[in-house]
């Protein structure tokens, strides 16, 4: 449910961050509407974590305007905190506690913030079921496996039923099944709880599965902003066509695959075999974009990417 009427959940304009003499963010602009799931992609060092930490209110920015749920995160109130969830990468904190005792403890802080339309916090047992930790509920946290611990991190992040949730590389180190379960939780939060979600990831497949919209951060700027489909169409317009004639393999990149294939049949008829047409994936788009910005060239690198891929 994306609500276009109310002001956006997150509004960032001309955000700049400088560490010493290094500019990490050079004027980042974007908006996230209420109820949207937005993924922030970008190469290592592009400033994803910095951006998220600024939005979470954990880091002071150098310049620019940032509004998160109507407040500037750096001096937002404790009441604002109650509406924002942060999934942190835990390490060895609360080692002696159990998932049940930790969640029950943390949930108490949110009790005064319960409202008619948004009862807070989550019931601990419900939360344990949701992240699949019922069986580990009484285990010491230090004995949890990596995946179990990350699921506990998610539970801690959402215990206060946040309106807005930040996740910084939430599935790093997850096995495929844990990943799938995590995706189910995110879908559930977005669809049933109407939670606005902003996450970073290196997993493009994950971004494609979860996100309503994708932002790509490169060179300290947002270089692309749109749905997976839009990005694929606008940035890498070409589709890749593979076929063989008399056992010989061919690859061709073209913006109009339908017409190309029709011409191919006109020319070769029944000799065509192994025909395969593939739209640009998010990965193609992403790599094309990032390479373009990292090399600082404005040329059409998409074609070049396809040629490399076909080698």
């Amino acid at each position, binding site marked *: 449910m994306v609500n276009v009427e109310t002001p956006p959940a997150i509004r960032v304009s001309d955000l700049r961050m400088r560490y010493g003499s290094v500019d990490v963010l050079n004027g980042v602009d974007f908006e996230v509407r209420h109820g949207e799931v937005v993924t922030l992609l970008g190469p290592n060092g592009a400033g994803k*974590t910095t951006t998220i930490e600024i939005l979470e209110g954990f880091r002071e920015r150098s310049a620019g305007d940032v509004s998160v749920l109507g407040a500037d995160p750096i001096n937002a109130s404790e009441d604002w905190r*109650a509406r924002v969830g942060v999934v942190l990468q835990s390490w060895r*904190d609360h080692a002696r506690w159990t998932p049940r005792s930790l969640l029950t403890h943390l949930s108490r802080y*949110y009790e*005064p913030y319960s409202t008619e339309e948004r009862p807070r916090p989550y019931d601990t047992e419900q939360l344990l079921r949701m992240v699949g930790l019922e069986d580990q509920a009484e285990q010491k946290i230090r004995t949890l496996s990596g995946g179990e611990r990350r699921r506990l991190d998610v539970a801690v992040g959402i215990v206060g039923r946040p309106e807005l949730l930040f996740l910084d590389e939430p599935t790093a180190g997850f096995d495929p099944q844990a990943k799938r379960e995590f995706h189910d939780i995110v879908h559930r939060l977005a669809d049933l709880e109407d939670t606005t979600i902003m996450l970073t990831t290196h997993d493009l497949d994950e971004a494609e599965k979860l996100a309503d919209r994708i932002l790509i951060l490169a060179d300290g700027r947002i270089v692309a902003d749109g749905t997976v489909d839009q990005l694929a169409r606008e940035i890498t317009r070409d589709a890749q066509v593979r076929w063989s004639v008399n056992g010989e393999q061919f690859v061709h990149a073209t913006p109009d695959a339908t017409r190309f294939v029709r011409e191919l049949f006109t020319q070769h008829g029944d000799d065509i075999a192994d025909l395969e047409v593939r739209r640009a994936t998010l990965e193609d788009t992403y790599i094309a974009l990032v390479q373009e910005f990292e090399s600082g060239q404005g040329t059409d690198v998409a074609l070049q990417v396809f040629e490399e891929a076909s080698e």
Partner: protein
Amino acid sequence: MSPKTQAIRTGLGRGWHEFELSLRSPQDQGFYIFMALVTLGYLWLNRNNELEGTSMLLPTFAMPSILGALIAFGLVIGPGYTLAMEREDGTLLRAKSTPHGVTGYVSGQVVFNAMGIIPMFIVILVPGMFLFDNLMQNGAAGWATVALVTVLGLLATLPIGIILGSLVPSVQKMGTWGFFPIMALTAISGIFFPIQTLWGWVQVVAQTFPIYWLGLGMRSAFLPDSATVLEIGDSWRTPQTLIILSLWAVAGLLIAPRVLGRMARRQSGSQVEAARHEAAQWVR
């Protein structure tokens, strides 16, 4: 109930829960037993030593002094270590991302560290009463003074621990920043022998810190008034003890929240991440 009151209550519960966990933890039980063995072992080895110029046995003098020093040690090093560690492992960041979570966290720290004095005193005092004669010579009034000095000592030293834990660059630096200074200060604070045997200027330095006064306050609780011959000015100097410990308490309670707040504001996920990498390196 206001969110802040709720957070303080939740934090007090947190401190109590951590205390329970600590009592059940073999690691912490080991620490208490170790402290008891070292203290009682030292006193036992010196059980027949008389203090120079008196007929008082060393354990009679040193036991109360050590209890005083342990308050300072436990409440400076304890929260110092916990805070330094929990800054690195993300506990504090979790508190920060919770509404009024830092308030709750600090309430918990106060309860947890204050409660920690109880098992420490029990493991030292209970066997001590059997091993050495005439430790407590002032009856119920003496125990009341023990309680008073303990509470005042807590207020005077716990904020120092919180300031230390907020400022120390990493857990590994706690030795240099916390442990060694406290040990050095304890050595010159008249805990193991009367302070007058030291140079004058060392006595002055020692008397500006709470450890000396905690030791003195505890001696005034346990020992008869005739024992004042071993003290500066032949007196327990009770008013001075109250004033100096109170001054430390007021200063600490004014400064600690600011230092802690400043440190908490700087907490971020990438800082925790960096500490994690550092620790991994350190272990290798």
